[in-house]
């Protein structure tokens, strides 16, 4: 019976580690990363995983050793003692040190993702308005005269010089993207798993969100805040285009917006 319990509790760390290894080998690990900051964000995850992983294996090991050393009914009673300054000092200082290390280490990375001092110095590329249950994305209209997009005023958009698409976020690759995020009703969360961006959208607030996407392609974009019964339907797509291709796309969509034909804009 003793062997059974030992192997059962031994199974927890062994299987736990095995799941990570298999996930890694089967590429079911973190989603692919397409942003430059993503690497540093992933690094933070790995650091925390390493700390918690080592402690997890250590405590599980202790448990198994204790089980193996147990002598059943005939064992002497365990000694009870109250207060041990050395032990308490050690585990308080160690955990505090770890916590302070994580807190300090992440500051520069967090700053790059969220601090205003790191916000790209440019006009917003799009205004993203979440609502139950879709994403409305407003883009500046391409100005044929000057050969670049109109300025997008996200506080009070000019509805004639910008156009709206639903559930489609198109961005150029390889340059910083600045998005202004808000919501019409409840709190939603703007999440691009592969660009490692997550930001809550709050009603009445216009929140700047920035990231970059290095690899052209089509990626998932979802709502990460349970916002109502249709939460599952707030699934949208992030389209990353080459710069030239993106401009061509914007021109095409702008022409579609100004077209006078009865047409389906999607």
């Amino acid at each position: 019976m003793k062997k059974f319990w030992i192997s059962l509790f031994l199974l927890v760390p062994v299987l736990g580690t095995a799941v990570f290894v298999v996930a890694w080998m089967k590429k079911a690990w973190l989603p692919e990363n397409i942003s430059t900051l993503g690497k540093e964000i992933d690094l933070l995850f790995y650091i925390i995983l390493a700390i918690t992983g080592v402690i997890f294996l250590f405590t599980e090991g202790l448990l198994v050793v204790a089980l193996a050393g147990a002598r059943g009914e005939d064992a002497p009673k365990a000694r009870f003692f109250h207060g041990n300054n050395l032990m308490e000092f050690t585990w308080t200082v160690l955990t505090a040190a770890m916590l302070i290390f994580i807190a300090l280490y992440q500051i520069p990375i967090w700053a790059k993702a969220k601090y205003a001092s790191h916000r790209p110095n440019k006009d917003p590329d799009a205004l993203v308005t979440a609502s139950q249950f879709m994403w409305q994305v407003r883009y500046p209209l391409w100005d044929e005269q000057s050969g670049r997009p109109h300025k997008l005023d996200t506080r009070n958009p000019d509805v004639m010089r910008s156009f709206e698409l639903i559930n489609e976020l198109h961005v150029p690759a390889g340059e910083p993207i600045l998005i202004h995020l808000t919501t019409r009703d409840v709190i939603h969360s703007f999440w691009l798993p592969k660009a490692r961006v997550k930001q809550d959208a709050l009603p009445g607030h216009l929140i700047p969100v920035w990231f970059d996407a290095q690899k052209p392609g089509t990626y998932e974009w979802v709502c990460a805040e349970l916002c109502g019964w249709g939460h599952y339907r707030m699934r949208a797509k992030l389209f990353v285009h080459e710069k030239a291709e993106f401009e061509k796309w914007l021109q095409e969509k702008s022409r579609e917006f100004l077209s006078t034909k009865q047409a389906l804009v999607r």
Partner: protein
Amino acid sequence: MTRHTRVLAVVLLLSIAPGCNDEYPESLEYQFQPYHTLSASNERETLDVDPALAQEIAGALKDYFGTPRNPTVKLSEDLKNNPELKLDDHRLSRGSHYYRRYCLYCHGINGDGNGPTGRFLLPRPRDFRLGIFKFRTNQQGTTPTRMDLKHTLVNGIPGSSMPSFGILSDDDLEYLVSYVIHLSLRGIVERQYVLAKRAGEEADIGELLEAAARTWIGNSATVVNAPEPPGGWYKFYQEGVLSDWKRGRELYTTKGACVECHGRDGRASAIELPTNVNRRDAWGELIVPRDLTHGVYRGGSRPVDIFYRIKVGIPGTGMPGAALSDEEIWHVVGYVMSMPLRR
């Protein structure tokens, strides 16, 4: 098997079973639901029948429209396969499948806008059964084109609870449009049948159905052909920049008479509606003239969408087609779309 295992098995089955059933039950039939409309004296009017008559109607209409699970429309093959209707059984049953999944909880089994969620929503989900659709681009009759319905499905209706269904493929959207037309035809026929019965007249369902279906034919041919704005877009914008859409404002306040309902500053208020305008729409709901300063356009946000709204009006509401030339309408579009910037 122990008792516990049996209980566990039943619980497991029950938890899986709802996921399997994506279709209406075979035995489900369309039932009569009350109609809310606008009476001759401009009040909300409810058309209801006693259970016996409701039973009779359901039986009579079943031959013509089938059941939610197996919908059909009993029309000549010619009419059924008309590109403006597309009501063959395969499309309808696919449409019913998607309708059950995506539309049912607001629009209801009959398309009466009384699904379980419908009662909590304002504006109310549309009742398809009157055959009136607000956002359309054709000038004839009371029905829109298939394209207009698809447009609403893809864009949703900003400012209401109707979300975008752009995630569906083009084929699936076509199926849904066909099924909505089916529900709409059924509603029109059912209501007229009841009204005839009330008046003590004989009504032939087949004839009513054919007449209702024919209102869809030829709609695409009357779609508004909007010209480019006078002088092209660049000149059009320049006018806005230079003159602040002076001409548009003048038309808005005088010849176009937009000001009567939408107000001088575009912030329409239901209280200030002129007395000669209906306070209720065709569904008996209170009308709120659109506040134009929000920049939220329910029927689509392209300039030409606003053009369509002004040109053909919004059926079922107090918004008439404007008595303006195409050029004048463009000026009004410019003025209206500049309103959000001035609020």
